[in-house]
């Protein structure tokens, strides 16, 4: 346990910074020891989409209907228009409208 009065809080924040920084740099550091073979490339390529899907899945399942409709409308607009900004705008507007009523 650490007191958050005075410098204690700044110490906690400083350590949070170091931990976060290590995550930003750590993946690059580890990869510099792994030869990038075709197999590794395939793993990385599959993983990059999977990171996003893994963030989104609980959001869609545990979110309210406003959240689900937002995601659904974003996906539909993105498929139709293929531009992220209109897709996001429609998604947010859908959630806002749904929650208004």
């Amino acid at each position, binding site marked *: 346990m650490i007191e*958050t009065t005075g410098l204690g809080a700044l110490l906690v*924040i400083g350590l949070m910074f170091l931990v976060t920084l290590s995550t930003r*740099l750590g993946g690059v550091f580890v990869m510099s020891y792994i030869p990038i073979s075709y*197999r590794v490339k395939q793993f990385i390529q599959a*993983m990059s989409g999977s990171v*996003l899907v893994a*963030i989104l899945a609980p959001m869609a399942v545990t979110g309210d209907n406003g*959240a689900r409709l937002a995601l659904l409308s974003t996906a539909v607009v993105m498929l139709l228009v293929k531009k992220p900004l209109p897709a996001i705008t429609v998604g947010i507007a859908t959630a806002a409208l749904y929650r208004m009523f």
Partner: protein
Amino acid sequence: MSLNTNNIDPSKLHRLDRYLIWKGFLQLVPLSFFVIAFGIAFGLAAKQTGLSSTESMAMSTLVFAGASQFASLELWGPKVSLITILITVFAINARHLLMGATLYPWLQHLSPTKRYGVMLLASDANWAMSLQAFTQGKPGFGILFGGGISLWLFWIFGTWVGLYFGNLIHDPKQFGLDMVMGCFLLAMVVGGEKNIRMFVIWIVAASASLLAFWFLPENSHVIVGAIAGGAVGLFWMNHKEGEKSHD
């Protein structure tokens, strides 16, 4: 966005200059406006939790990772358990490890200083956009670094606004603002490669993530889902013509 940018020599994709950084900055400005709303919510929450203005601003400036900052507020009090906070922050931000790894095929061509430098402000949005640029055969590090600067500045600004005018956006959820990142990341997924292999990878990643979300320790779902999806890619390889000759 013109077609001929797709014909750039692949060995030049990792280039990074002021013009590309500025272009990347501008590309992320529209999304950064939404980030202000998150920043406001964070500033307000930090103030209500009892953090001083200096502490709140220091956290947004140094940590620059919204989800983990909100989580740390949940654990904050007159006395905090340092280990619990740091483990929570690590677990939530461990996805950055994967981001660095996914960009490594291009990062490896940079000098070590630049290689780690461009990762300093990596976060969900600018990482996803830079990776998308690379896979479309466009240079992506301007987006990663310049876009990171944009997100970072607007995040800090939003936090400041939240500290002093927090009541402006009392309930971001009501305006659907809690869905900005979700919608953005989904747009990136949908805009990416679509085929039966990717589809199976996504299903596996989503299922693994949900199982981890329900049955494994908190905040482990992103890593678990990503590695499960990656493993599928490892066993079901994408045999493109010409690609194999690189090995």
